[in-house]
């Protein structure tokens, strides 16, 4: 594992040792405090997975905490199972329930998801209220309690396991897709990510972790009632811990967990009445001033850097074989659009447009502003559904297919305004696409390195997209699209703002792709960028095709000139 820094290993082992030491040799009070800290930290780790890595902020983490507590309690009360079996059942139960719940709740986003989860927690609390077997609203004792020392030890080990899991997650394919989804779900889909599957997986993991924390709670406290199991203050502290430590980082929940636990304990001793005010103010402060938390600020200042996923890039060797495309005989029709139309409100953005895209050829689509060019791309890449007409890839209609399916199935695109992943490096950005089409890690890595080298971005592999000049950002988008090994490449004003060298580089890469049989469709405003490559030009105006043919004819066509410059018509 070459990316694990020595410091991290030492820190991990030191904390683990300290935790176990306090648990074993400390007083009952100290062990109990440690247990609280560990349990909350575990909750924070779980919350971080759905709210940090995936970007779906939830105000209902306590829902799964309480759920886990209740499932564990029922297992113990009714079936007399030992605590660890109860914990396992709680985790499984939460996971099983999280699946359908996630499929429902994850359709929401932003405030809807956050409040929806809050509502879910309240519903579960009401259910718990009416459960006779656990004593309804008054609660019940649960006859499995062990010493604080033992529970604290187990809790510390559980946190250690949680950290390890976060660690591996943040370096895995799933972690990569989650972060891409968080940064820009649309771009992630266009890069072949099944965002839905990733989100649900993260939701389930998060729920399981919370449920384990809940079962540990029951084991430690020996008493369960709805108000405590679903307490709002648990939610408050969980959120604050992750925010303070650094949302979306591996160590953030732990750092925040320790700090906020100590703070809470201190406040509880000195200012028990004002505790929530102080914590609330702290959240507001962090949200306004430093939303990245402690670790986030350190990353911002460059003192800390997240190690690259599956990086650094290996030496580039030429790909064995000529890519995975079977070379189509030249000029096969790959993609057709038949009488394609789409309407938004009363506006006909695209009207009755026919397009034919052939392998090994570039088609340029031009037209004045508002002509419908990007709308056309949106129809081809499943970002919008056509009102009428059909789009076919190799003879099969693709209407109704999902975006990520099209991306993996051979249609790659870039966007008119760059959609890059703000928190992923250049390397990782292209890796997202490569790993969508290469099941094996080694292939994905090799492919990413190759593509970056082809477009000349390899030396920038560890840069974040916002430090790249605009031309290189566009280059990155093109690289990401090429990494999908597409049959059809849709470029939407991809070369805006590029320097001459960058354009030359792109031309080389495009030329190579075209020679391999890829069909390129390029929207461009100013033609010198693609003139050397475009075999045919199609001109759109007001959503309709007004001219097509070879570049020279089209560009000297008076109808086309009029569309750009304005009509001769009625004088002012």
């Amino acid at each position, binding site marked *: 594992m070459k990316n694990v820094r020595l410091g991290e290993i030492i820190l991990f082992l030191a904390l683990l040792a300290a935790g176990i030491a306090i648990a074993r040799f400390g007083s009952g009070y100290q062990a109990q405090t440690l247990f609280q800290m560990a349990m909350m930290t575990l909750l924070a780790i779980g919350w971080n997975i759905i709210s940090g890595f995936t970007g779906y902020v939830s105000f209902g983490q306590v829902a799964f905490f309480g759920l886990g507590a209740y499932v564990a309690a029922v297992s113990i009360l009714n079936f007399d199972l030992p605590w660890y079996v109860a914990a396992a059942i709680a985790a499984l139960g939460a996971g099983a329930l999280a699946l359908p719940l996630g499929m429902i709740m994850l359709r929401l986003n932003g405030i809807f998801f956050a409040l929806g989860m809050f509502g879910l927690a309240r519903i579960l609390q009401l259910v718990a209220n009416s459960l006779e077997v656990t004593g309804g609203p008054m609660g019940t004792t649960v006859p499995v309690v062990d010493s604080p020392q033992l529970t604290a030890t187990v809790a510390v080990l559980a946190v250690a396991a949680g950290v390890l899991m976060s660690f591996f997650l943040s370096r895995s394919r799933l972690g990569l897709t989650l972060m891409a989804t968080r940064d820009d779900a649309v771009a992630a889909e266009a890069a072949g990510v099944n965002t839905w599957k990733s989100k649900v997986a993260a939701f389930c993991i998060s729920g399981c972790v919370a449920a384990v924390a809940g079962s540990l709670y029951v084991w430690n406290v020996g008493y369960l009632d709805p108000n405590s199991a679903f307490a709002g203050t648990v939610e408050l502290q969980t959120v604050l811990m992750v925010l303070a430590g650094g949302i979306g980082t591996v160590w953030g929940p732990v750092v925040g967990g320790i700090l906020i636990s100590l703070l809470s304990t201190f406040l509880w001793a000195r200012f028990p009445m004002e505790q929530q005010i102080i914590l609330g103010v702290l959240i507001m402060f962090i949200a306004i001033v430093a939303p990245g938390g402690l670790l986030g600020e350190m990353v911002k200042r460059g003192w800390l850097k997240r190690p690259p996923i599956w990086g650094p890039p290996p030496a580039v060797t030429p790909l064995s074989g000529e890519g995975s495309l079977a070379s189509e005989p030249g000029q096969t029709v790959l993609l057709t659009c038949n009488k394609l139309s789409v309407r938004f409100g009363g506006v006909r953005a695209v009207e009755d447009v026919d397009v034919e895209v052939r392998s090994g050829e570039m088609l340029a689509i031009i037209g004045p502003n508002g002509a419908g060019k990007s709308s056309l791309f949106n129809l081809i890449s499943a970002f919008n559904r056509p009102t009428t007409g059909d789009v076919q890839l190799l003879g099969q209609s693709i209407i109704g297919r999902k975006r990520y399916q099209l991306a993996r199935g051979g249609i790659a695109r870039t966007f008119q305004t760059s959609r890059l992943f703000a928190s992923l490096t250049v390397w990782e950005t292209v890796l997202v696409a490569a790993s969508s089409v290469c099941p094996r890690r080694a292939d994905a890595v090799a492919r990413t390195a190759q593509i970056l080298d082809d477009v000349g971005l390899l030396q920038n592999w560890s840069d974040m997209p916002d430090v790249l000049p605009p031309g290189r950002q566009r280059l990155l988008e093109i690289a990401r699209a090429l990494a999908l090994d597409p049959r059809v490449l849709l470029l939407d004003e991809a070369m805006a703002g590029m320097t001459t060298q960058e354009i030359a580089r792109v031309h080389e890469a495009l030329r190579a792709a075209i020679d391999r049989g890829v069909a390129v469709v390029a929207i461009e405003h*100013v033609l010198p960028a693609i*003139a050397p490559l475009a075999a045919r030009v199609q001109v759109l105006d007001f959503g309709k095709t007004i001219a097509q043919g070879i570049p020279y004819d089209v560009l000297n066509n008076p109808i086309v000139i009029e569309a750009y410059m304005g009509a001769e018509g009625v004088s002012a």
Partner: protein
Amino acid sequence: MSAAILQLENVSAGYKTAPTIRGIDLIMMAGDAVAIIGANGAGKTTLLRAIMGQIAMMGGSVSFQGKGISNLSTHQRARLGIGYAPEGRQLFQSMTVTENLEIGAARISSVIRKQRIERIFEIFPKLRPLARTDCGFLSGGEQQMVTVARALMGEAQLLLLDEPSTGLAPRVISELYASLAQLLPTGLTILVAEQNARAALRFAKRALVLEDGHLAMEGAAADLLEDRRVVDAYIGLGSKDLGWKTGGAAGEKAIPRS
């Protein structure tokens, strides 16, 4: 001997770190009609946004009627007498035409406001029957008229129009510019950024051609109308290198409609 209505000196502006437009100079006197034309991405909208305070300037200065306004916010500049018809119109869609006009002069007495609305209806008679209609139901041309009318409600001395002809049929464009031309003799100064070069050049007296964020050509509108180089700048033909300079004109927010 009157002060210039608008003075731009070496203005640079942009988004994030690199400027999208650089070194723009312009002086406009009362009654001037100037068109800014250029291909998409050339910087026309960026320039108007900089004048109106929507984006931060990275260099140079802007003065209105002799006073520097570089540090004022958008609404403060509007209150000084700059009317702004933004890109995409930005009407209040579920409010009526009259209400939209009223907002244009929200801070003055209702008596004077009513008088101004009356005057607007004289300039744009087509709006009168639509007075009670929600703007969301108007056609593109009618909406554009309301946008301009609303900008005039504040008794502006300078009117900035950002791509008013977008999405309009040629006939409607002519009508719009005809109405604007009527306003010039009253001393109103108009600066219009346009995609549709011909309509803008017929309307304006002077024109600036932007390319990749800098001033490529400047002159009398009538002259530029005949100049083949303008066509080249738009469509991209022509033998000269159209200047893919380092750090070019990216970042210009293209209208997400095509």
